[in-house]
């Protein structure tokens, strides 16, 4: 997009948003592929997500989980294929929230938790205007929902890993997001913090907010999500945990990095590739 296009769009920016087509699903991907330097990062991904649905995205490192989320958020453009949010391209929507990986954030940035959560509101406030009372009200409610209202005035570097993730979730709530994309939110968290974050998922579901949640831990994915996507550049399987986590699928996704053992009628995958290094 040229600067000129962008300026033209800016003029209409507050007035025109893409409408939500009622008969279209929240999210639809059609044959989405992305190539980096002649290498496929994602190939031919197609699926749909309805309002309020929660989908765990699992797969090895480098499977393209981050890339997929950034394409859905409209941050990266797919080389081929289309993304539709309620029937229109993502770049006209402000109802999508992307929660970054923790190591992608400058935690020494001089702002408080409240400031970060308020950032979710600014798409609705507009240039040259300050947040109003209703904006601060939303921020307060969002902080209460995720249980960190007591930390509102702390600088962000004072937060624990779990609190950092909950702050970003609060920002997504303040944004009034209808689709939240969480990129490896559990990596680097200890078990209690993981459980605390996962305990917030039913609240999102009650509010009809859809969720894409990238994670490594297959057993946590199975426990907390009724729908899973197994990804390794291609969409290997999508559906209920038992269908997705079959030995044949896991072998396709993880290759030699996974040992598969029978476990009370199911298959249990033991992964030795773990966690949190950058592009997931």
């Amino acid at each position, binding site marked *: 997009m040229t600067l000129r296009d*962008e300026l033209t769009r800016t003029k209409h920016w507050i007035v025109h948003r893409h409408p939500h087509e009622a008969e279209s699903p929240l999210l639809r991907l059609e044959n989405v592929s992305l190539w980096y330097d002649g290498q496929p990062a994602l190939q031919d991904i197609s699926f749909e997500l309805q309002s309020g649905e929660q989908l765990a995205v699992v797969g090895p490192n480098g499977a393209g989980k981050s890339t997929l989320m950034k394409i859905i958020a409209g941050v990266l453009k797919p080389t081929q294929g289309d993304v539709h949010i309620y029937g229109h391209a993502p770049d006209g929507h*402000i109802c999508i929230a992307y929660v970054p990986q923790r190591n992608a954030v400058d935690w020494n940035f001089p702002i408080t938790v409240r*400031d970060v959560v308020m950032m979710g509101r*600014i798409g609705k406030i507009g240039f040259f205007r300050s947040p109003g009372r209703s904006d601060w009200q939303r921020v307060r409610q969002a902080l209460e929902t995720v249980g960190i209202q007591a930390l509102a005035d702390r600088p962000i570097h004072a937060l624990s890993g779990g609190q950092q993730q909950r702050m970003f979730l609060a920002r997504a709530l303040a944004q009034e997001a209808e689709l939240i994309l969480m990129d490896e939110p559990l990596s680097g968290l200890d078990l209690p913090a993981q459980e605390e974050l996962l305990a917030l998922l039913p609240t999102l579901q009650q509010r009809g907010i859809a969720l894409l949640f990238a994670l490594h831990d297959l057993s946590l994915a199975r426990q907390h999500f009724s729908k899973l996507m197994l990804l390794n550049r291609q969409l290997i399987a999508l559906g209920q945990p038992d269908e997705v986590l079959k030995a044949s699928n896991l072998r396709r996704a993880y290759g030699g990095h996974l040992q598969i053992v029978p476990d009370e009628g199911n298959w249990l995958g033991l992964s030795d590739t773990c966690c949190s290094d950058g592009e997931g």
Partner: protein
Amino acid sequence: MFEWLWTPLQYAFMWRGLIAVVLMGSVCAVVGTFVVLRGMAFFGDALAHTILPGVAIGYILNGGNTSGLFWWALGAALLSAIGIGAISHGGRIKEDTAIGIVFAGMFALGITLISTVRSYSVDLSHFLFGDVLGVRDRDLWLSAIFGAVVLTAVIGFYKEFLTLSFDPVLATTLRLPVRFLNYFLMLLMALAIVISLQTVGVALMVAMLITPAATAYLLTPRLPRMIWVAALIASFSGGVGLYLSYYLGIASGGAIVLVATCIFLLVWLGQAVRRQVRSQTGG
């Protein structure tokens, strides 16, 4: 003490100098806060140096009359910013490489142009290191107008600049006009630099952008206060530097930057010592 402060103010040039450094200091510090937070110090330094050919052309065309310099300098800065963007676009040439190429190329062009003028060394040193005591009423007016534009813009786009600096991906998903805001911030940097041309000169300009802001960053955990503190430190450094320059007969640009640097070092050392003490008493 009072007399020490008052005596120089009997001269009009000293008044004008003081007003100029406070204006320049505040504007640079406000813009510089975002420069520091976004890690654009090298870009700022480069942009300051790239105005030299603009200044030189303005100087040669108008002879001794410096009234057109502002516009030539601004034009050169904008051309350079766009050039850096164009060369690094697409990712084949990395941004810092593009900055280095444009920085050195423009600076060389400036020096070459100025060397065609007879009074070469005197003029060059004024452009490089500033000549705050040579500030005239007209320069002050231009600085004040540009300064007001910059401050209004930063206040008006504060939320957007804040979000863009902290989390560019969020800025994109909120569908802020990210590229427009980036260019706009560069324009504000260019304006701040042009305002500072006469007070500190191009060679030391980056110090006014980043040193007070970096000091304020150490002192305060919250951004709005960081901006205020940076502006205060910059104005204070400007004033003290000006007096030192008057009494010691030293170059004003150098004196101002040295004062700002000393304040930074004091704060930085003070915090290092405090951390040390705390870790020892804390066991």
